[in-house]
């Protein structure tokens, strides 16, 4: 019943399910293994579990839940960096609510706040800047998270702070890029993903061109998708049809929001403010070259790492959780020995269990009861 309620057009949903089943059957005849499609974005992961899409698809189709949830790939050491800054009496640390429960080696930001650090959740970096205006005697540090979707907002906030001459505002910059990360995944020799459902709101900023290499160099279909259940079904069918025809192209299912060239003003702000870091650590994925952003030297005054001479922490991922294998699609969340036992949404061991867009939390919330029994 929830299907008919969930879809804007239930008749179209039924048609898509039928057509997906037909295409999957044709594909299954020519291959021994299931077709694996990676949805890159955590928002898509959430929708897939929330609407139980997998239950209505043939067994010959598997989803691999990709790395596109910024909270889920936040390494423990970076949480420790944020806590170290927040413990300074002159600092108010601000960040998005999603980051509060992610465990670091020294606990989470929520625990640090309970222990007396001044940590505040903000909806927008603009609200962090407003705190800086209102508290001229305090240092406001914004722990900036997210992919290309939110990186322009932080860049525009830095430009705004510079224009206004605000001197007590800085960033702990943890913005990351999806394009080099996809390349790193595709370069792994045992990466068994046949095609991609691409991240709609990242592509809204970047446009569709940066993903051409996925098709041209790595011969995988890549379909930029919207966030409704119907969008995901339609995008999945577009991927399967390419596979059936032996093609690999970038297609745009979410053209109502994603222009091919992206958002020029957002891209210009990113170029003006950021440069790539030589190396960035990801939880579960190790270090990926040029996958993270830092402020250009021009904006050094807004860089909390320089301002407070921060020595970055590096902490190994917890050994008992197999977050990396889930992130790269090698195992399903339920195949991790910690899933639902040592690692639950109430007491997360890995970050995939923290955010509702994390594969493990989404899986636990919507399938957990029958899987862990």
């Amino acid at each position: 019943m929830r299907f008919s309620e969930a879809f804007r057009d239930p008749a179209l949903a039924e048609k898509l399910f039928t057509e997906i089943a037909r295409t999957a059957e044709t594909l299954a005849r020519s291959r021994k293994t299931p077709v694996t499609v990676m949805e890159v974005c955590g928002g898509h992961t959430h929708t897939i579990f929330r609407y139980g899409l997998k239950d209505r698809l043939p067994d010959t189709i598997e989803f691999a839940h990709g790395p596109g949830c910024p909270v889920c790939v936040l390494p423990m050491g970076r949480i420790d960096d944020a806590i170290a800054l927040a413990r300074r009496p002159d600092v108010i640390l601000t960040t998005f609510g999603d980051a509060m429960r992610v465990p670091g080696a020294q606990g989470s930001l929520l625990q640090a706040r309970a222990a007396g650090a001044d940590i505040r959740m903000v909806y927008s970096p603009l609200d962090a800047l407003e705190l800086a205006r209102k508290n001229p005697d305090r240092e406001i540090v914004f722990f900036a998270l997210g992919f290309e979707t939110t990186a322009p907002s932080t860049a525009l906030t830095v430009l705004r702070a510079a224009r206004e001459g605000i001197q007590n505002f800085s960033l702990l910059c943890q913005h990351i890029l999806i394009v080099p990360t996809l390349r790193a995944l595709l370069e792994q020799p045992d990466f068994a993903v046949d095609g991609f459902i691409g991240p709609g709101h990242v592509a809204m900023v970047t446009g569709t061109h940066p993903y051409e290499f996925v098709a041209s160099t790595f011969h995988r279909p890549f379909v930029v998708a919207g966030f409704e259940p119907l969008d995901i079904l339609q995008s999945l069918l577009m991927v399967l049809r390419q596979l059936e025809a032996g093609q690999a192209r970038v297609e745009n299912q979410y053209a109502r929001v994603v222009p091919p060239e992206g958002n020029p003003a957002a891209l210009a702000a990113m170029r003006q403010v950021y440069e790539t870091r030589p190396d960035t650590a990801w939880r579960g994925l190790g270090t990926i070259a040029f996958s993270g952003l830092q402020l250009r030297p021009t904006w050094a005054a807004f860089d909390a790492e320089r301002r407070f001479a921060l020595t970055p922490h590096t902490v190994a991922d917890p050994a008992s959780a197999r977050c990396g294998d889930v992130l790269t699609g090698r195992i399903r969340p339920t195949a991790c020995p910690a899933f639902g036992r040592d690692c639950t949404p109430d007491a997360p061991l890995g970050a995939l269990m923290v955010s509702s867009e994390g594969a493990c939390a989404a899986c636990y919330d919507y399938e957990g009861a029958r899987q862990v029994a």
Partner: protein
Amino acid sequence: MCLGIPARITGIADAAAMLAEVDVHGVRREVDVLCVAPPDAPLEDLIGSWVLVHVGFAMSRISEPEARATLALLAEMGELHEELTAMQDTGKAGGSHAVQ
């Protein structure tokens, strides 16, 4: 953080600073509209149009039917309430939203 929320632009708060006022399901706030500003027209042209807002920045102009369908979906998924609470409680010391 990544889903975005549809909002209708109701007025221009500060044209020089690229700030507009939006209404999201009855909640009002200022958002940055630099990324959706029409290049050769006054900012006032945005009034009445719908945009997709990510963390306080309008990132894409969308149609009204698209906006209403997305709002309905967010409400059904229980994410509309969470987003609106975050917008209202922002920056408070010891705020309780998003952490249960």
